[in-house]
């Protein structure tokens, strides 16, 4: 078989997008093209949409964690004036899920409930209050089953299966084991071995907008579905699959989305049941979740128990890493198969490592399903790894910053587990935060209760392999150029606040020498826009950006050819800038962009082009390494300065310095916003956030008791952008939306050690826990 890389392909790789124009769009710090509409309230979210004859759906949810459903009595609910219809699980028997090998979910429970809050039935009524009241009148009779709540129980073969069809010996969704190099030999060569266990809590995303879907039947058996989703393509596929419809008979539209952070990556009961009820009732149906329901819908961070053993040489180099993780995933798979890989595959970044072994388990329990949350699967092990590096540095008498820098991988290397790394700005990131924070002068010298800590991390820019096997584009962009000069950009991407609309407008404008405002971006509409796989795994800037540049290059070429004829020069002599096309050597010889477009349409007919992107087949030494490889990797370093109140245990984060290698900043303000957002979420996970349970009942499904930081608790964040111009990113750009969160919690944990002399291995670092640890340590010191 020939090397797939040599196969002729339409795919753009690398992009040859070259250097941006001087005085062009790239690298500016400016407001997003859609920024004002969001902050003024002009943007239309799914719940803003109202249709004639629209009714509202409300779910009846399980009150038990694990039980057979004996009966559902809806008579009282149906007798309530205003109730127009109901649906129950067995009406939608097809199982679905984004990951083809783990489709274990139905839109509503069929025969059995697996977590508290699982939807059982849905009531449609003329208004939301009536639907809510009716849902409370439904009586469900259960036959309770033994629930599985812990890692131990999930691994216990004598315990019942949560999914009866599972052929695994216990409640394991996926076990992954990988070994590279010779781990035993690595430890034998080590001068120092550090070994410990860590526990990372589950947490949730807290998007401001709850999940909403609105479905409207069209004539001829077709359907329009509006959904607040990050992944229109996967929702489209799964809704069609479950409803037994042709995909082309469903138009899925993603209106403005009020954030996702991974929480809107799955197709949800809202989407499927709204569509189902709309067809059943022949009228529009809206389902808008309540905040309590968003908590139960979950898909949040997997709580993980971890064991890490690392070997070090005296000079700080790493001789071996042995890592085990158990992730408690809740009742359904969601993206859990991917999680099981992400827990381990990024550990060989960013430090040189030859001998690596990891084993991970993703388990089922009778709790709301976990899924992808910002930094998916990589957040938890990063805490362990970065704390281990600090522990080793202190034990070896090395400066933790210098030790990290000395062990950074170089650009254009392949890690022991086959990750092909192109651009690397790790050392520059470390240098930036160490210098700005005064880390070297402050470490160990800030006095009692004060500390400073450093951590580094790396993350992916999209998955090399799509979640379902195909050789099609992973991102595509279509451009239409109007003779008015307006450029309309169609893309299946899903801006969920992170700025992908602006990213596309800016790249297109940069290429055509116009302003981002001149580009109207139509995105996330399956009938209008070509497919993009969605906003997950930090893929959109890299992949959709490349597709966008490819399409813009084709448009540019046509315009340039027409303009060259008019101006009597070669195409290569032309510059596109400032809404003009002009001769580089003689700028006075110019056409306006509009005139140039007019000429191009005269020469070629209507102007419209498409561009697509799929990653180059990067041949890996390791056949099984299908989850983890990415076309590029981003790098982050951060320093946290903290204070600990020794009387109360309250931890205050004074300041965070963060540097992120995003390849190239397309819009500096958006990049800074993403980095700061990552740090903010990290601060929340360090100090407060933990998805607590009372048995199978989520302890605090409300934003009053599930604490996320307010402006008062958010530290000053000093942000540095490091640009490494990745050879394969659009104009060298990489991701910025997830990677920066990886090192926040470990930087804080390392700072806490500097402040207290204690290693806190289990976030969140709440005052009661911190004070108890300080008290124990004082007692021990007193008795010693």
């Amino acid at each position, binding site marked *: 078989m020939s090397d797939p890389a040599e196969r002729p392909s339409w795919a753009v790789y690398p992009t040859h997008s070259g250097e941006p124009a001087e005085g062009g769009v790239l690298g500016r710090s400016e407001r997003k093209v859609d920024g004002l509409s969001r902050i003024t309230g002009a943007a239309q979210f799914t719940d803003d949409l109202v249709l004639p004859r629209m009714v509202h759906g409300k779910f009846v949810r*399980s009150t038990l964690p694990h039980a057979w459903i004996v009966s559902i009595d809806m008579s009282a609910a149906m007798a309530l004036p205003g109730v127009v219809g109901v649906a129950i699980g067995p009406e939608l028997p097809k199982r679905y899920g984004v990951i083809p090998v783990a489709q274990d979910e139905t839109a509503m429970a069929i025969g059995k409930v697996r977590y508290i809050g699982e939807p059982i039935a849905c009531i449609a009524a003329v208004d939301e*209050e009536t639907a809510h009241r009716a849902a409370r009148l439904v009586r469900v009779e259960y036959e309770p089953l033994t629930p599985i709540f812990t890692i131990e129980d999930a691994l216990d073969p004598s315990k019942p299966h949560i999914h009866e069809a599972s052929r695994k010996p216990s409640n394991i969704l996926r076990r992954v084991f990988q070994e590279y190099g010779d781990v035993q030999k690595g430890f034998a060569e080590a001068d120092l071995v550090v070994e410990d266990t860590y526990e990372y809590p589950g947490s949730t995303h807290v998007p401001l907008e709850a999940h909403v879907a609105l479905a409207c039947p069209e004539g001829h058996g077709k359907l329009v579905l509006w959904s607040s989703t990050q992944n229109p393509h996967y929702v489209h596929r799964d809704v069609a699959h479950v409803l037994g419809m042709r995909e082309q008979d469903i138009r899925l539209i993603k209106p403005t989305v009020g954030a996702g952070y991974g929480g809107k990556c799955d197709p949800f009961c809202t989407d499927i049941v709204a569509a189902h009820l709309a067809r059943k009732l022949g009228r529009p149906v809206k389902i808008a979740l309540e905040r309590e*329901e968003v908590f139960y819908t979950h898909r949040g961070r997997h709580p993980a128990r971890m064991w890490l053993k690392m070997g070090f040489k005296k000079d700080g180099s790493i001789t071996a890493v042995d890592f085990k993780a158990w992730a408690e995933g809740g009742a359904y798979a969601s993206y859990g198969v991917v999680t099981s890989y992400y827990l381990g595959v990024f550990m060989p970044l960013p430090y040189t490592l030859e001998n690596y072994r990891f084993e991970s388990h993703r388990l089922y329990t009778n709790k709301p399903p976990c899924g992808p949350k910002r930094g998916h699967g990589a957040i938890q092990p990063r805490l362990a790894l970065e704390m281990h590096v600090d522990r080793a540095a202190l034990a070896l008498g090395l400066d933790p910053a210098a030790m990290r820098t000395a062990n950074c991988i170089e650009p254009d290397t392949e890690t022991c587990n086959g990750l092909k790394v192109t651009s690397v700005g790790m050392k520059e990131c470390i240098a930036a935060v160490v210098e700005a924070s005064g880390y070297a002068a402050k470490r160990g010298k800030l006095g009692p209760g004060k500390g400073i800590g450093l951590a580094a991390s790396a993350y992916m820019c999209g998955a090399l392999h799509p979640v379902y096997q195909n050789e099609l584009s992973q991102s595509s962009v279509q451009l239409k150029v109007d003779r008015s000069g307006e450029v309309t950009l169609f893309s299946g991407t899903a801006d969920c606040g992170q700025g992908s609309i602006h990213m596309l407008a800016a790249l297109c404008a940069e290429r055509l020498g116009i302003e981002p405002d001149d580009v109207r971006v139509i995105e996330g509409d399956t009938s209008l826009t070509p497919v993009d796989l969605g906003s997950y795994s930090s893929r959109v800037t890299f992949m959709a950006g490349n597709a966008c540049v490819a399409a813009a290059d084709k448009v540019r070429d046509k315009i340039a050819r027409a303009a060259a004829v008019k101006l009597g020069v070669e195409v290569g002599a032309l510059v596109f800038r400032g809404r003009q096309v002009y001769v580089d050597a003689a700028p006075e010889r110019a056409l306006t962009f509009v005139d140039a477009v007019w000429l191009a349409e005269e020469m070629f007919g209507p102007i419209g082009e498409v561009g697509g992107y799929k990653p180059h087949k990067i041949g890996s030494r390791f056949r099984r390494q299908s989850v983890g490889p990415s076309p590029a990797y981003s790098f982050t370093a951060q320093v946290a300065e903290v204070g600990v109140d020794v009387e*109360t245990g309250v931890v205050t984060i004074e300041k965070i310095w963060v540097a992120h290698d995003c390849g190239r900043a397309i819009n500096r303000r958006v990049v800074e916003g993403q980095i700061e957002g990552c740090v903010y979420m990290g601060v929340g996970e360090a100090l407060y956030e933990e998805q607590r349970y009372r048995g199978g009942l*989520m302890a605090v499904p409300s934003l009053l008791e599930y604490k996320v930081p*307010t402006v008062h608790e958010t530290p000053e964040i000093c942000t540095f952008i490091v640009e490494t111009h990745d050879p394969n990113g659009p104009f060298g750009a990489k991701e910025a939306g997830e990677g920066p969160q990886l090192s926040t919690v470990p930087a804080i944990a390392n700072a806490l050690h500097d402040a207290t002399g204690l290693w806190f291995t289990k976030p969140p670092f709440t*005052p009661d826990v911190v004070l108890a640890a300080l008290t124990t340590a004082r007692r021990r010191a007193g008795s010693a």
Partner: protein
Amino acid sequence: MLPLPRFEYSAPNDVRDASRFLAEPGSQLIAGGTDLLVSMKQRLFEPRHLVSIRRLGLRGVTVQGGVVRIGAATTLAQVATNLTVREQFPALSDACLTVATPTIQSMATLGGNLMLDTRCLYYNQPAGWRASLGYCLKREGTVCHVAPKGRGCYATQSADTVPALWLYGAEVEFQSTRGVVLRKVSDMYRDDGMAWHGVGRDEVLVAVRLPLAEARVGHRKLRTRQAIDYAQVLVAVRAPVADGPWAAVISAVASSPLFVEAEDPTALAEAAFRASQPLSTHLPAATWRKRMVRVEVARAAAALGDGR
């Protein structure tokens, strides 16, 4: 989203009309509504009839005969920024500014704060959650999840202004068709999470009266975040007046505020610590909250100086 249950709404012009409405079963007084409406959304209250005090003319701060009288419908923001309050009762001003957020302070009223329902981790939750739990003693259930073997409800008194008002010697004026009744803040609350006050259902809280005196009071609220959150421990401390003792009121650790006195700040903190028996009504460990009572009282006392 979470819809409100249906209800009728009246805003009478006269306190006696309001009192008559409130005497009817299923009616409920509403002032700022910042807490009540949330509780109604959670189906903790499903009143048939909401009776608003907004047209009763209960807003404003007046000074007469050595007494400052604050109308019950005066918002917390207005109380906090009133010059007389800031000069004479700074701890009350501070307390108002610790309530939730500035937007809520501009809606919430002083009367509403005094009548804030007792709170608990197992009670102030959405309806679906409480159904899964099997409800609790305070609402729809038979068991207290904080103390399953206990005999009562341990929901905590959580009104931010109460400890300061108590130590300033405040009185509360209630009016009904039966006339006007005055109650001292220090007599108003009972140590029972369900029947936490003795106010009749037809009584309208119309004003708070504060005697102009030389009391120096400090207020502290322990909470996870410096906005939004209810108190985990609430303390007010009064420096000695003449040769009297130090005094403290501790709240958010029991169904009623606790009052302690001692000769010096250290003894006061110790007395407060010993008097407080917080239970698992809040997320942070109860043992930690108990320790925090001592710290917070000591810090409040320290901020007042040597008491002279």
